[in-house]
């Protein structure tokens, strides 16, 4: 469905800049140690914008958000504002949301349907394909010989989708999306392909600001179920009348899995996450669906559909099965993020079940949600304490679950025993380090080799 934009030279990229020195001293993952500088240092942040956010495949939209030609959403890739637009031929394109004339933001709406995008400043008008079609007082430009064909909106370097999730990258050299996700697609299918109708986003986007480093949010969802039992005790008691399940007591049936820095912690209790929404219809729906998913994807993945679990797609998009919140942590400097959250559901689910999820997701995982409410403060102060000059010279611990690697499960990716673990977090920071060190994609060490097909 999504074709790569073929006008790549229109998007200029400067040669990669100089790296912050001695990045290798920031972490000793083997021994579960890392520096706090990665959460505070401005130079490191600027390098992240270049080598992480302007390089990786980032989630930009769900297909269901832009079904018709001209439908668009305005979102961010790092701090770059982009428009993601459905084309007349059904493909999707992405453009920097900035006018090539004097740089003004072109589209001020969050979403909508457009026949064209017109800049407020001088009336430059762009088609939904990004082409410059004309401008106010056009004769003045014609007299100056402006070449309209060379001044369209700047396209993203590549755009593609997987199971309804649209990703884009600002790096023409990036590997294909299939390669970038690699074997992690096996696990993604447990949520985004559990039902033949696929998924859709419902209910719009809830946005908020958290004064924390983006990596605290990403690392939390990549593998940290451990915090739930303590941080979210009050939310669990509010929603289900009891504490969070004591998952640390049952490591045999739960895992950390990761690939290319993407990570998923999960157990096989089918509905553990979903149960926290406190809605019986959702539980019934998942229990009835589970045997069908088992036929479709096998027993293990059928037990992941609403289980106690969380996932981050490197670098900054995450979701929770069962609670059905999908979210992107857009960086806003080293000490802030803008959080965008959506509710996803199976497209074929009954309307009443979709409605229950829309409500339940926001009741639990939105800024007013009884679970999310306690996350923000943890991440804000994990960030803010590092303003202390001496404080930030003290290393942090990230050593849970050494020696838990499993090699005989037959599951794709790197698999670890027990969801109470920090293996995924270490893999996340390893990927972060690899990308931060590498001057180009070709220099990124290929630690994980896909066994699934990666050709487009």
């Amino acid at each position, binding site marked *: 469905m999504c074709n790569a934009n073929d006008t790549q030279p229109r998007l200029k990229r400067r040669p990669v800049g100089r790296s912050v020195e001695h990045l290798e001293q920031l972490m000793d993952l083997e021994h579960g140690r890392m520096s706090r500088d990665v959460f505070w240092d401005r130079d490191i942040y600027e390098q992240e914008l270049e080598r992480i956010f302007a390089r990786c495949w980032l989630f930009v939209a769900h297909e269901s958000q832009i079904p018709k030609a001209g439908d668009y959403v305005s979102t961010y890739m790092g701090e770059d504002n982009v428009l993601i637009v459905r084309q007349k031929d059904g493909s999707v394109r992405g453009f920097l949301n900035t006018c090539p004339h004097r740089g003004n933001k072109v589209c001020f709406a969050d*979403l909508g349907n457009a026949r064209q995008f017109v800049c407020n400043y001088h009336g430059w008008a762009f088609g939904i394909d990004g082409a410059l079609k004309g401008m106010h007082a056009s004769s003045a430009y014609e007299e100056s010989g402006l070449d309209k064909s060379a001044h369209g909106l700047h396209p993203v370097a590549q755009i593609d989708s997987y199971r309804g999730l649209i990703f884009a990258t600002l790096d023409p050299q990036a590997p294909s999306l299939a390669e970038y996700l690699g074997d992690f697609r096996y696990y993604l299918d447990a949520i985004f392909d559990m039902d033949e109708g696929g998924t859709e986003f419902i209910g719009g986007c*809830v946005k908020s600001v958290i004064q924390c480093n983006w990596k605290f949010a990403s690392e939390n969802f990549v593998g940290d179920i451990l915090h739930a039992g303590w941080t979210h005790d009050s939310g669990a008691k509010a929603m289900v009348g009891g504490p969070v399940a004591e998952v640390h007591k049952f490591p045999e049936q739960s895992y950390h899995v990761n690939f290319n820095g993407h990570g998923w912690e999960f157990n096989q209790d089918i509905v553990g996450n979903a149960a926290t929404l*406190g809605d019986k219809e959702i539980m019934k729906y998942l229990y009835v669906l589970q045997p069908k998913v088992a036929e479709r994807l096998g027993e293990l993945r059928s037990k992941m559909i609403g289980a106690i679990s969380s996932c981050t797609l490197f670098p900054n998009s995450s979701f929770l099965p069962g609670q059905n919140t999908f979210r992107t942590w857009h960086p806003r400097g080293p000490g802030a993020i803008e959080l965008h959250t959506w509710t996803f559901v199976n497209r074929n689910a009954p309307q009443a079940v979709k409605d229950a999820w*829309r409500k339940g997701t*926001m009741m639990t995982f939105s800024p007013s949600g009884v679970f999310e*409410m*306690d996350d923000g*403060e943890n991440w804000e102060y994990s960030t803010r304490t590092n303003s202390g000059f001496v404080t930030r010279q003290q290393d942090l611990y990230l050593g849970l679950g050494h020696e838990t690697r499993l090699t005989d499960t037959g599951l794709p990716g790197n698999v670890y025993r027990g969801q109470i673990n920090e293996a995924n977090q270490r893999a996340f920071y390893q990927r972060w380090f690899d990308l931060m060190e590498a001057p180009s994609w070709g220099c990124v060490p290929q630690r994980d080799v896909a066994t699934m097909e990666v050709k487009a």
Partner: protein
Amino acid sequence: MSAVARLPEIPVDAETQRRIEQFLYREARLLDDERWDDWLALMAEDIHYWMPTMENRRRADKLGAYALDRGALYNDNRLDLTRRVSRFKQPSAWAEDPPTRHAHVISGVEVYQGERTGEYVVHSSFVNYRSRVERDNDLLVGRREDLLRAVGDSFQIVRRKILMTQSVLMAKNLNTFL
């Protein structure tokens, strides 16, 4: 879209206006004082407590900034509100300990007759200022549209629609009612 169908704005007598203003001011004080159960008692059994999130759409976009089936920070019935209150009361509600200091400021109260006898359509604007630990200060400003029902010698809130000005909530959470 509206929590209360548009009715002709028929004013009420000064005494009713005064009693409803007092009711809303008292409600604000209960929230400032974290008297959650007393606050909950002001909500009718059939309460719909709704605070949609705002989308930036072009004026020509007929879908408007918010709708019932879109994003919301609150889209609650009585059970939902009870659950939220029960979280506030847990010793493990970390984001409330030490306590957040709240100031709920209510003004511009307009009261009109509702569709049924003993029901009132009440408009008000709010300023909510929260201070937490040392330097966490969050300001939220907006407008409310309530449907109140006379119960005994007081009132209950049957519908509340809360419209805030922010489209991106400029805070890590929303740990109060408005």
